[in-house]
């Protein structure tokens, strides 16, 4: 390593991080603003957090978002995992290329197009837009992300584990649930979390596919912002950031500790 703290390096790091995080810092700071004016500092206060919990509209939207997120992430995880297994295990079947292309296409599909086409579909089949359609739409677009995460784990999965289980008398289905699933579980959990996060902050597709009574949090925030940014929104976003940050930090600490424990164990095993 010969990285030196030259003036150029320091400047680029400061500018880079400022570009990324200054808006978020501003948002957090102004969520504690006494004044009703978003851009004028009027002293420290937590009153917007209090009023936030009395804002029925925002609380309802949060509840809708949480339910849509959990349900769609769970269904997308099951479907995405199945897709990933098909793609890694059955390397030769008719239309495999088409299948893999169709699994991964939503990854690069513009959200506007996904949203619009889903809207057209729901209208065409006469499905009333609401909670069910948003959930369905979220399953559709998060599934491919789960498939990517799980597939990358399956590629390095040692097939002889499954063969060993079958050799010891476990039929294929039992082998899957007792051996394959537990081993790839961390990837499946990451896939679920990714799907949940994507569903949580999706605005575009939700706007197309949602209906009355199923307003998600991003939609609610967006509609309020159009009427003028209130510090209440800042408070809501700060809570959202806090929840995500805590989740990420806990996950990475747990990961790190597991890794350290593993290395210690391996060293101990080598010593005999």
């Amino acid at each position: 390593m010969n990285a030196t703290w030259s003036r150029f390096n320091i400047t680029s790091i400061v500018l880079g991080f400022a570009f990324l995080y200054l808006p978020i810092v501003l948002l957090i700071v102004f969520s504690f603003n006494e004044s009703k004016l978003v851009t004028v500092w009027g002293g420290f206060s937590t009153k917007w957090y209090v009023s936030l919990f009395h804002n029925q509209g925002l609380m309802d939207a949060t509840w809708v978002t949480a339910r849509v997120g959990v349900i769609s992430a769970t269904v997308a995880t099951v479907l995405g995992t199945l897709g990933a297994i098909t793609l890694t295990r059955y390397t030769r079947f008719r239309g495999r290329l088409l299948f893999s292309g169709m699994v991964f296409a939503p990854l690069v599909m513009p959200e506007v197009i996904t949203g619009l086409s889903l809207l057209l579909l729901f209208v065409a089949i006469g499905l009333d837009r609401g909670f069910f359609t948003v959930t369905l739409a979220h399953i559709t677009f998060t599934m491919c992300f789960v498939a990517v995460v799980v597939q990358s784990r399956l590629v390095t999965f040692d097939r002889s584990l499954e063969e060993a289980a079958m050799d010891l008398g476990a039929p294929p289905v039992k082998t899957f649930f007792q051996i394959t699933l537990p081993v790839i579980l961390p990837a499946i959990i990451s896939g679920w979390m990714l799907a949940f996060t994507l569903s949580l902050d999706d605005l575009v597709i939700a706007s197309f596919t949602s209906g009355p009574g199923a307003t998600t949090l991003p939609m609610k925030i967006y509609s309020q912002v159009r009427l003028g940014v209130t510090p209440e929104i800042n408070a809501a976003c700060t809570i959202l950031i806090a929840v995500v940050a805590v989740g990420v930090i806990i996950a990475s600490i747990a990961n790190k500790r597991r890794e350290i424990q593993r290395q210690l164990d391996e060293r101990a095993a080598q010593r005999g």
Partner: protein
Amino acid sequence: MKSLGSIRRDFAPWNDPNAKPYIQFDKVTKKFGEFTAVNNLSLTIFEREFFALLGASGCGKSTLLRMLAGFEEPSAGRILLDGQDLRGIPPYKRPVNMMFQSYALFPHMTVEKNIAFGLKQEGMPGADIARRVAEMLKLVKLEQFAKRKPHQLSGGQRQRVALARSVAKRPKVLLLDEPLGALDKKLREETQFELMDLQQELGLTFVVVTHDQEEAMTMADRIAIMDKGEVMQVATPAEVYEAPTSRFVAHFVGNVNLFEGKVAERSASTTRITGMTGAQIVVDNGGDAANGAEIVFAIRPEKIKVSSKKPADAVNALEGEVYDVAYLGDMTVYHIRLDDGQMVRASALNASRVTEDPLTWNDRAWVSFRPDAGVVLTR
């Protein structure tokens, strides 16, 4: 009584015409697309035999093992186990267990749970499972590691867990795919003897796949030497070494000197060979070589004596020059260039600490050997 090699064998069902075969490969062919991994192969293995499949990578030995385990189905031919045709029987219903080259230990289960896995699938009662697991742990001397996970074990310990897991169900046949491949040399040698003892103790039939000829020679009752999906020879280690039936086998197992030549004179007891370069060799056993046939005479380095003077009583003696000498401690290896240009490798056991006839680079030397020291190969 004379016997090939230095071991007398009391267990030799393959010499008994009434012995019932246990595992039979009957004209088995396995193709992967255009590639033929196993080609019209027939092979018989007997109960309680320690059988080795030896060959270079890609010779089809692992495919053979995987067909026996049920992971692959033969493209043609039959595999019989104890008289039962195995076709269509999935791996989880076959009375054979396999020890994998990678060990394939379940990473999310403790040693105990790994060993118990197969027994649980059988529906064995919990108390019996606990007893069997304890027994297995004792057998492989891992009692104090029962609660560890595989990544908390050393390579040698993992190997023993894999072994315990694969014999826990008391399979009719245990298949071992390069069982010692991942161990270091010293541990490998120890484990070879442990495996032999275990096989004796449990009375199981072992089929082991290996590319290490020493490993096969040490452990197996019989060895099948494979090349390009075909069996070249099936015989005891001593027969494979002392009486190879083809140039390939002679070359594959151990070191060998090959003399190309022609049968000059053939009688019931002796065969006279004229080498391509004019040397005359007399041997006892001419095999199936006819008069005038082009053959190869194969002789192992340790069967050749090197001396500075022509031995008075030698039937076969050829003169040359010392080209290279390597002192290895337990023996000395000589490379002699005969006057006709042929290189000969000879090794002499250093039975005493001093030698009376020391040879060095560029010395004149004689190589001599008895008429029964080598074999005549027509293939």
